[in-house]
């Protein structure tokens, strides 16, 4: 069952995260996509709101530039927590979530 698939290795590659899974599938997700899909309560609530055309970027967001991680650590046996360059670090990405966010890549890519 895909739900129980564990990662074998995770690599920072180019502008994203490449994950090799135990069932032989390799997925890739850009940092931008991962940051935009942060599962924390605050980000989930923000995404549920209609987009604000007048939203002003915070100075931290402007200084950070494109989304990039500054640290990734494991959470128990079930998730990874990503700390981002914009100072946000409350998202706990479960294995299922990471698998869904990634696009399968064929070997050799």
């Amino acid at each position: 069952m895909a739900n129980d698939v564990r990662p074998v290795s995770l690599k920072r590659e180019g502008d994203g995260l490449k994950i090799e899974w135990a069932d032989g599938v390799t997925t890739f997700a850009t940092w931008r996509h991962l940051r935009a899909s942060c599962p924390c309560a605050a980000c989930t609530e923000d995404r549920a709101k209609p987009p604000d055309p007048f939203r002003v970027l915070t100075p931290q967001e402007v200084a950070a530039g494109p989304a990039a991680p500054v640290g990734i650590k494991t959470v128990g046996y079930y998730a990874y927590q990503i700390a981002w360059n914009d100072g946000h670090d409350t998202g706990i990405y479960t294995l299922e979530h990471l698998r869904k966010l990634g696009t399968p890549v064929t070997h050799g890519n």
Partner: protein
Amino acid sequence: MNPGMPQKLSLPGVKNVIAVASGKGGVGKSTVAANLALALRMSGQSVGLMDADIYGPSVPIMFGLGMVDPQTTPFPLEKYGVKLMSMGFMVDPNQAVIWRGPKVAQAVQAFLGQIDWGDLDFLVIDLPPGTGDAQLTLSQSAPLSGAVIVTTPQDVSLIDARKGVRMFQEVKVPVLGVIENMSYFVGDDGKRYNLFRAGGGQKLASEIGVPLLGEMPIDPRIAECGDTGEPMVRKYPDSPAAQAYLALARRVIATSATPAAAPLPEVQW
């Protein structure tokens, strides 16, 4: 870093961390945890027992201990060869711990990470009922080898035990098995009476595909032993309940011999 976020703890000297959990309160988790810890000790293992029930700690009374001065007493305490840590050692039993969740998480993390547990074969963790802060903190921060689920036979207990199992499945902590507590009573006539119905523990174990680790009998002496500070398995080692706990310890040792949980790989930069 947000103080509520999981801090990763490593317990290098501890071989197995076993959480004793249930969804429901009052099923005898603390009794099971205390007797299991002692039964493991009596089976030649080095054992610690951590009371993660911050609001309602039971380990002190079950081991005949009270409040100590944390300034002068090094933790963990030790009794009957088992290393012990509990909120009850630090707070007057007549005083309530009125804390919000993040403080509970901090206390649980401190018990795990800041106490010198030394080299242990087993660290048994007595969890509070439910699927809240203490459970989540442990699942995120502690290198849990597995969880055992305590239930009583009737459906009203099984409903919540299932939630406990579901939580451990979500956070991918292996459930080592189910313990059915208050399973039966042996009368003076030698007959076995199923006071709270029969077969509930087996039903839950079969449902989730794990072994039924034990059916613990009701014995009035269990309550007496708990209240007087010497767990049943030590005070009456020949009683059927104590024998059941010693058998449970053997099963837990056997189950733990094959590690069911492996840490996730770190990200390569």
